[in-house]
């Protein structure tokens, strides 16, 4: 549905995007994740035909964003970083205006506006002047504007910024509902948001894509499979000796709750698990919990975006 290949964007001699390539399939929700200034907004602006790429191509639904910009724009809903609102208009007149420029037939206008209002829970505020709305409500009006015409592709630049926790949960639910028949790209620097709403993540840093994968795979990548959370119902007090029967095994954070013990287990090598677990079971101890501990997306993110060379941004400007 969406394809970027080798998209590079220079602002003067500052390189904002450097050979960015990724694709998003129909009905997929892709999270564009990166620190501030990584190039998320620039990538979205290229996709929405707002700015052209210096080199490389981008297509939406098979249409090139530069050659066939009008066809692309017909299929897009876009929520920019700052919601594009006219403060002197009421919510209703604003959404009617959007319906007009989005080529919605007059007959369907009312229904579309009403449905967008319901989906973003703006019902009580429809006759308020936008300038008097709070930031959260403005964000919702921006979102209503983006999905008013049921676009095939939704591009949301930090959709939950400025919302309170309840609204964030609502908006996330909304995005998940939309993913059934829309293709969504959303950018964020809030990590839990990605794991909750997106199936796939593209991590972008200093204008380059450093990883594109599913949330699970990324979490797995960031972890080492030698750490486990263990729950044990020991047969005797010698359980610890059984666990440590293999050289190099570490037991940490022990706690006893009733007749169970819980601890973190670190193996010297991945293959050692079989020997350790057999030894423990052989002594008559019972496992009640074995959870491989995975790195959080946070750790993966830090690992991938952390650069040791402080000169990397200078190098980028020189390019």
């Amino acid at each position: 549905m969406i394809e970027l290949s080798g998209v590079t964007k220079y602002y003067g001699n500052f390189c904002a995007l450097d050979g960015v390539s990724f694709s998003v399939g129909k009905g997929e929700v892709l999270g564009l994740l990166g620190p501030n200034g990584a190039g998320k907004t620039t990538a979205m602006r290229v996709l929405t035909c707002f700015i052209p790429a210096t080199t490389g191509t981008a297509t939406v639904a098979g249409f090139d964003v530069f050659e066939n910009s009008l066809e692309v724009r017909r299929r897009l809903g876009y929520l920019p970083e700052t919601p594009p609102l006219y403060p002197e208009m009421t919510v209703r007149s604003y959404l009617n205006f959007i319906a007009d420029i989005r080529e919605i037939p007059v007959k369907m206008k009312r229904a579309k506006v009403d449905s967008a209002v319901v989906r973003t829970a703006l019902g009580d505020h429809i006759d308020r002047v936008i300038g008097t709305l709070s930031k959260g409500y403005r964000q919702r009006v921006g979102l209503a504007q983006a999905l008013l015409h049921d676009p095939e592709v939704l591009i949301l630049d930090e959709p939950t910024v400025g919302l309170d926790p309840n609204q964030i949960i609502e908006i996330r639910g909304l995005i998940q509902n939309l993913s059934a028949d829309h293709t969504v790209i959303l950018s964020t620097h809030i990590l839990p948001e990605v794991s909750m709403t997106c199936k796939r993540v593209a991590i972008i840093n200093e204008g380059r894509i450093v990883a594109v994968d599913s949330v699970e795979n990324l979490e797995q990548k960031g972890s080492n499979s030698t750490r486990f959370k263990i729950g044990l119902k020991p047969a005797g007090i010698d359980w610890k000796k059984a666990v440590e029967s293999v050289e190099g095994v570490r037991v940490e954070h022990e706690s006893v709750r009733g007749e169970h013990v819980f601890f973190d287990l670190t193996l010297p090598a991945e293959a050692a698990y079989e020997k350790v677990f057999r030894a423990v079971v052989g002594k008559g101890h019972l496992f009640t919990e074995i959870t491989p501990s995975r790195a959080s997306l946070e750790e993966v993110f830090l690992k991938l975006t952390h650069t040791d060379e402080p000169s990397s941004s200078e190098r980028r400007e020189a390019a």
Partner: protein
Amino acid sequence: MKILAIMRKELQTFFYSPVAYIVFSSFLLVVGYLFWIVLVTSKVATLQPLLYNAAFILLLVSPVLTMRLISEERRSNTIELLLTSPISPVEIVIGKFLACFILYLMLIILTFQYPGILWSYAQNLDWGPIISGYIGIILLGAAFISLGLFASSVTENQVMSAMISFGGLLLFWLCGWAKTALENSLGEVLGKLSLFDRFSEFLRGIVDSGNVIFFLVFTITFLFLTTRVLESDRWR
């Protein structure tokens, strides 16, 4: 359809903000004062001096009407909404032009009371120069607004936009003076470009097709330049 949407939105904006009311009331106040002073001092039933002065006041007023049209969209990032919607820069520019032109026509219609007042006292009023003068003022308005719209598209600052259109309009208003000063071909060209020289022919009761075409070409040129500025955002 999309042009009408833009036009309606701009008209709403004009009347939701105090700008339209302030412009209307100050324009009518000044024109009313001039009508009275001209009539009392000259005691002649002619509208020519009033129309000449009204045209100059409109030159001062129209940058105020046009200054926010595009610059405000840039400043508040709503330009991002317009340019990522399936609407072309031509439609945006024409919609905005029409909205402003309608407002301008409203101003003009409100001055129809003055020929009316003259007519109620002087039954032998010469309607020819009055009608041609009004045609001139309407064409002049299209030119004022198109240049103002262009000035508004090149900056995101309303004050700067207004200053650019003031400067531009005054230059085009006064450049005819160079004709007598230079007495060469450059002076001739500047004389031909003068909005004032062209307009004063209408005041004398002459509707010359060359002058009509000049105003139309002037307007279309600046509207075209404005669409180019908007489009250039997309390839820069």
